[in-house]
C-alpha cells in the first residue's frame, strides 16, 4: 500500500501549467507550426464502400509540375510494408492496385504541392477506377456472411462471460427460476469525437530518418506503425506530439494513418509536408464510437432481487479490425452493470462491415452496454413500483461482492458513497407540468443512473504494456518528468508536475513535464483507458521518490544529510551531472485474470458514479431541455479538483449529447452529415450548469489514492437523461439518441399515456 505523501501541491486546484500559453495564442498546434519550405498534402479517397481497385489514373491534361503523387507502390519500393500496424496488420496505408477497397473514404493515393489550394486541386485530377462489389452495411448482413469481409463469418472477435453456471442449458434453468423477466433491445448510434482541432501531422526527413510531429494521443503507437511502414528500426523515426486540441479517443489510433501518409509524401517530395484534415474529411474518414445493439434479459425474483442477467452485444467494427476487440472487451466487461447477481451470461461479438472503421471514443464500449442495463433496471423499478434510486441502492455491488467475472471487490468501492451523494443532492422534483415561455405545454421528468468503469487496461494489459516513466534532475539543476503520456487537454502535464512536486517537496511550477517525443521519453503506454493519472501518475510518483532518495543519499555523503531536495538539488546536479530514475509498472498484489475463461480481476480497480437528470420536454416541438444534471464520481483522490471536475463536466456533456442530440448518419456506407452544421454537438445553449460531486474512496495502489476518471463520466448520463424522458412521457425509449423526431414519432403513444396519468 502506498504511503500517503504530505499534502503539498496534491489535492489543490493548481492552475494548468499550459494555461498561459493557451490563453495567449502561444500554444502551437500542428497547423500553427511554421515549417519553412513545407508543402501541403491531400488524400485521394474511395467513393465506393466495397470493390477492387483496378487503376489509379492521373489526368493527362493536368499540369503535374510541382505535384508529388504517392501510391501503395511507393511503400514496397522503399522496403516498407503496406500496413497500419495496430492489433493486427489487416489495414493498408493505401489500397494497392488489385487490392480490395473496404470502405468509402478509404485512402487510395496521396498528393502534395506547394500550397494547400494546389494540393486540393491536384487531388481532383487523380482518378481511381474501382470495380464495385456488394457492400455489407449493417451487422445483420455481416452476420449472414453472404459477403465475406473477414474470415468465414465476418466476426472480428467474440467473447463469452459466464458467472454461476456451466453452459447455456444451466443458464436457461437459472433464468427460468425468475419470477419475471424483463426483455429489451437497445440500439445505440455511432458518435463523432468532434475534438475542435481537426487531425493533422507534419513530417520531414533528415539523413534517412523520419521526423513526425502532430496531433495525437499515443506517440509510441505511431512509432510502432512507422517502423513497419517505413521498414526502419526504432531510431529511424522520431514521433513528437504537438499541442493537441482534444482527442477523446479519436486521436488514439487514427494518427498512425495520417503519419503514414505524410511520411510517404515528405520522403517523395524531399521536403517537409503538412497534412491537415478539414472538418468534413475528419468526420467522414476517421473513427467513431462503435454503433451497437444489445439484447438484454433481466430475471427478477418476486422481491425484486436480480436472479439472472443475459446480454447479447453486437458491435459494428467497420472495415478493419483496428481496436474493435478491445472496445468489445470493455463493453462486455461492463455489460452486467454494478449490480449483485449470481448468474450472468454475456455474449459479445464485433463484426466487419463496409463502414469506415469504428474505434476508440471515451468510454470505449462501456457507454453502449451501460445504457441497456440502466434502462432495464429502470423498467424493473417501475414494474415493482419502487423508487429507482432506492432500488439501485439496494442492488449495488458492495465490498465483498463479486462482479460478472468473479472479481471480488475488496477496496476502493465507492458504490454506496456515490448513490448517497446523489440522494443528498436530489432535492424535490420540479413541477411535472408547466407552460413554456412560448405558451407550449411542457412535461418534466427525472431520471437516474448508476455505473462503474474499470481503470487502466483490461486484465493483464498493464503488465503487458509494462509502462515506464522517468523523473530526472538535469545537469542544469531542473527537475523533469519524462513520459509518453500526452496532455490532450485533460491536464496530464499539470497533475504530473503536482505528483512529482509532492514527492520532492517542490512547487509544481518547479517541475518541467517534457513534451512527449519518442527520442526523449520512455514508453509509458498509450494515453487511453483512464490510466494516465492512476497508472502513469503512479510511475511518476515512484520515480520522483527514487530520485529524492538518491539525492538525499548524496547529500548525506556530503555533510548535508536531512536537507530538503530543493536546497541540495543544484549542488547535486553540479557534482553528478544528470541523475535520472526510471521505473516500470508493477501490478498490485493478488490481481489475477484468466484471458481464456474471461474470469478474475478484469481491472485493478473500478471508478463508481451515479447521475441524476431533470428534463423538460416541449410537447409541441418535442425538444428536450436538460434542466439539471448532477453527477457524483468516485475518483479515489482528486489530485487537482479543478481539473478533474472540468474533465467530468466535459464528459458529462458529451454523454448528454450522445443521448439527446448527436447523430452520425450513414448512407450507402458514407457519413451523410460530415459537417459541424448537421453533425451537431452541444453548444452553450444546450448545456445546463452541470453539477459535480467528487467522492474520494482511495485506491491503495494509486498515486495519493487516485484512480481513473477520464472515461466514466461518459458512461451514464445518456441513460439518466433518457430515463428522465421516459419518466416524463410514460412510454419507453430504448434507443440512443432520443432526438425530438424520435419523440414526435411516438406522439400517439405518449399522448395516450399522459391522458391516462
Amino acid at each position, binding site marked *: 500500500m502506498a504511503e500517503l505523501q504530505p499534502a503539498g501541491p496534491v489535492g489543490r486546484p493548481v492552475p*494548468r501549467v499550459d494555461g498561459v500559453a*493557451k*490563453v495567449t495564442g502561444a500554444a502551437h498546434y500542428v*497547423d500553427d507550426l511554421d515549417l519553412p519550405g513545407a508543402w501541403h498534402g491531400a488524400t485521394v479517397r474511395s467513393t465506393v464502400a466495397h470493390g477492387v481497385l483496378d487503376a489509379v489514373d492521373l489526368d493527362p491534361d493536368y499540369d503535374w509540375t510541382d505535384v508529388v503523387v504517392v501510391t501503395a507502390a511507393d511503400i514496397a519500393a522503399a522496403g516498407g510494408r503496406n500496413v497500419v500496424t495496430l492489433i493486427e496488420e489487416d489495414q493498408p496505408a493505401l489500397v494497392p492496385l488489385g487490392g480490395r477497397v473496404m470502405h468509402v473514404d478509404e485512402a487510395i493515393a496521396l498528393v502534395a504541392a506547394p500550397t494547400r489550394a494546389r494540393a486540393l486541386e491536384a487531388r481532383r485530377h487523380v482518378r481511381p477506377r474501382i470495380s464495385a462489389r456488394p457492400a455489407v452495411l449493417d451487422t445483420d448482413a455481416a452476420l449472414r456472411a453472404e459477403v465475406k469481409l473477414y474470415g468465414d463469418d465476418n466476426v472480428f472477435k467474440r467473447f463469452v462471460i459466464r458467472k454461476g453456471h456451466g453452459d447455456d442449458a444451466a443458464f436457461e434453468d437459472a433464468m427460468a427460476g425468475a419470477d419475471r423477466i424483463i426483455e429489451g433491445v437497445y440500439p445505440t448510434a455511432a458518435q463523432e469525437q468532434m475534438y475542435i482541432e481537426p487531425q493533422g501531422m507534419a513530417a520531414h526527413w533528415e539523413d534517412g530518418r523520419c521526423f513526425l510531429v502532430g496531433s495525437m494521443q499515443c506517440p509510441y503507437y505511431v512509432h510502432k506503425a512507422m517502423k513497419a511502414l517505413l521498414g526502419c528500426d526504432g531510431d529511424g523515426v522520431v514521433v513528437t506530439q504537438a499541442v493537441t*486540441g482534444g482527442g477523446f479517443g479519436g486521436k488514439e489510433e487514427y494518427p498512425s494513418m495520417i503519419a503514414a501518409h505524410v511520411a510517404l509524401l515528405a520522403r517523395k517530395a524531399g521536403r517537409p509536408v503538412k497534412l491537415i484534415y478539414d472538418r468534413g474529411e475528419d468526420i467522414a474518414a476517421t473513427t467513431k464510437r462503435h454503433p451497437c445493439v444489445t439484447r438484454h434479459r433481466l430475471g427478477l425474483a418476486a422481491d425484486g432481487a436480480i436472479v439472472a442477467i443475459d446480454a447479447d452485444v453486437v458491435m459494428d467494427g467497420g472495415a478493419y479490425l483496428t481496436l474493435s476487440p478491445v472496445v468489445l472487451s470493455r463493453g462486455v466487461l461492463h455489460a452486467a452493470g454494478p449490480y449483485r447477481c449470481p448468474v450472468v451470461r454475456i455474449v459479445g461479438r464485433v463484426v466487419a462491415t463496409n463502414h469506415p472503421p469504428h474505434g476508440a471514443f471515451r468510454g470505449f464500449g462501456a457507454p453502449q452496454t451501460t445504457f441497456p442495463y440502466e434502462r432495464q433496471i429502470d423498467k424493473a423499478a417501475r414494474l415493482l413500483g419502487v423508487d429507482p434510486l432506492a432500488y439501485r441502492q439496494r442492488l449495488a455491488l458492495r465490498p465483498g461482492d463479486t462482479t460478472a467475472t468473479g472479481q471480488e471487490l475488496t477496496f476502493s468501492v465507492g458504490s454506496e458513497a456515490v448513490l448517497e451523494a446523489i440522494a443528498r443532492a436530489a432535492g424535490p422534483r420540479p413541477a411535472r407540468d408547466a407552460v413554456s415561455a412560448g405558451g407550449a405545454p411542457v412535461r418534466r421528468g427525472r431520471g437516474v443512473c448508476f455505473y462503474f468503469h474499470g481503470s487502466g487496461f483490461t486484465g493483464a494489459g498493464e503488465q503487458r504494456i509494462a509502462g515506464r516513466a522517468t523523473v530526472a534532475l538535469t545537469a542544469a539543476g531542473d527537475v523533469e518528468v519524462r513520459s509518453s503520456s500526452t496532455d490532450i487537454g485533460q491536464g496530464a502535464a499539470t497533475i504530473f508536475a503536482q505528483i512529482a512536486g509532492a514527492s520532492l517537496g517542490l512547487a509544481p511550477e518547479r517541475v518541467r513535464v517534457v513534451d512527449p517525443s519518442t527520442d526523449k521519453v520512455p514508453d509509458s503506454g498509450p494515453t487511453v483507458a483512464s490510466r494516465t493519472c492512476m497508472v502513469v501518475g503512479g510511475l511518476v510518483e515512484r520515480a520522483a521518490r527514487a530520485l529524492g532518495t538518491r539525492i538525499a543519499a548524496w547529500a548525506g555523503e556530503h555533510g548535508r544529510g536531512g536537507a530538503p531536495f530543493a536546497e541540495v538539488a543544484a549542488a547535486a546536479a553540479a557534482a553528478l551531472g544528470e541523475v535520472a530514475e526510471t521505473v516500470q509498472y508493477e501490478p498490485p498484489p493478488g490481481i489475477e485474470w484468466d484471458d481464456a475463461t474471461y474470469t478474475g480481476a478484469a481491472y485493478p480497480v473500478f471508478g463508481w458514479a451515479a447521475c441524476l437528470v431533470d428534463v423538460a420536454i416541449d410537447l409541441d416541438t418535442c425538444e428536450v431541455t436538460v434542466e439539471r444534471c448532477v453527477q457524483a464520481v468516485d475518483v479515489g483522490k482528486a489530485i487537482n479538483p479543478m481539473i478533474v*471536475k*472540468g474533465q467530468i463536466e466535459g464528459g458529462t456533456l458529451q454523454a448528454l449529447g450522445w443521448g439527446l442530440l448527436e447523430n452520425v448518419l450513414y448512407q450507402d456506407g458514407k457519413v451523410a452529415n460530415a*459537417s*459541424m452544421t448537421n453533425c451537431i454537438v452541444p453548444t452553450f445553449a444546450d448545456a445546463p450548469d*452541470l453539477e459535480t460531486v467528487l467522492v474520494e474512496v482511495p485506491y491503495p495502489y494509486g498515486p495519493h489514492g487516485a484512480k481513473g476518471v477520464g472515461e466514466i463520466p461518459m458512461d451514464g448520463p445518456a441513460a439518466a437523461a433518457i430515463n428522465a424522458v421516459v419518466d416524463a412521457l410514460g412510454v419507453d425509449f430504448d434507443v440512443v439518441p432520443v432526438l425530438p423526431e424520435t419523440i414526435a414519432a411516438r406522439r400517439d403513444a405518449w399522448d395516450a399515456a399522459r391522458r391516462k396519468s
Partner: protein
Amino acid sequence: MRSSDGSLIEVHLTVNGDAVRRAVPPERTLAELLREDLLLTGCKQGCDQGDCGACTVLVDGRAQLACLTLVVAIDGATIETVEGLQQRGRLHPLQAAFVAHGAAQCGFCTPGMLLSAVALLRASPRASRDEIRAGLAGNLCRCTGYVKIIDAVEAVARGDDEEPAP
C-alpha cells in the same frame, strides 16, 4: 497567390495596433491572412465553415468569424486577435480568469472564446450567466462542458477578479 483573373487588391488594416498593408486576391479570408501572412496563429480553424467559432476575432470591436470574412470586404478595419489581448505584458482579466478557473482544457477553442467574451463584456460589462451563455453560444467547446468558461467570464463580469479592461 493569385485570384482567378490574377488581380490583387490592396487593403489597409490595423492588426493589434499595427498598420498592415497587403495586396490580396479577392478570395483571401481574414483567417488565411492572419495565420499564413502574419503568423498570428492564435486564430484557429476548426471547421472553415462558420460552425465552430474557433477563428473568432474582433473586427472594429465586433466578434466576427475570420474564416468567413473576406479581407477585401473589411478594408480599413481594426482587427484584434488573441495575441493582442495582453497589455504591457499583463494578461487581460479574461485571460487571467480563464487560467484561474480552468476554462481552457485542450485550448483550441480558447482564443475564439476569449474574443467573443471580450466583445460580450464590452457591450454588457455585468453580463449574467444566461447572458454569457447566449453571448458565447456561437463558440463550440468539446472539453469543458462550458461550466468553467461561464465561471471565468462571470468572475470578470462580477468584478471578482479584476475590473474588465476598457
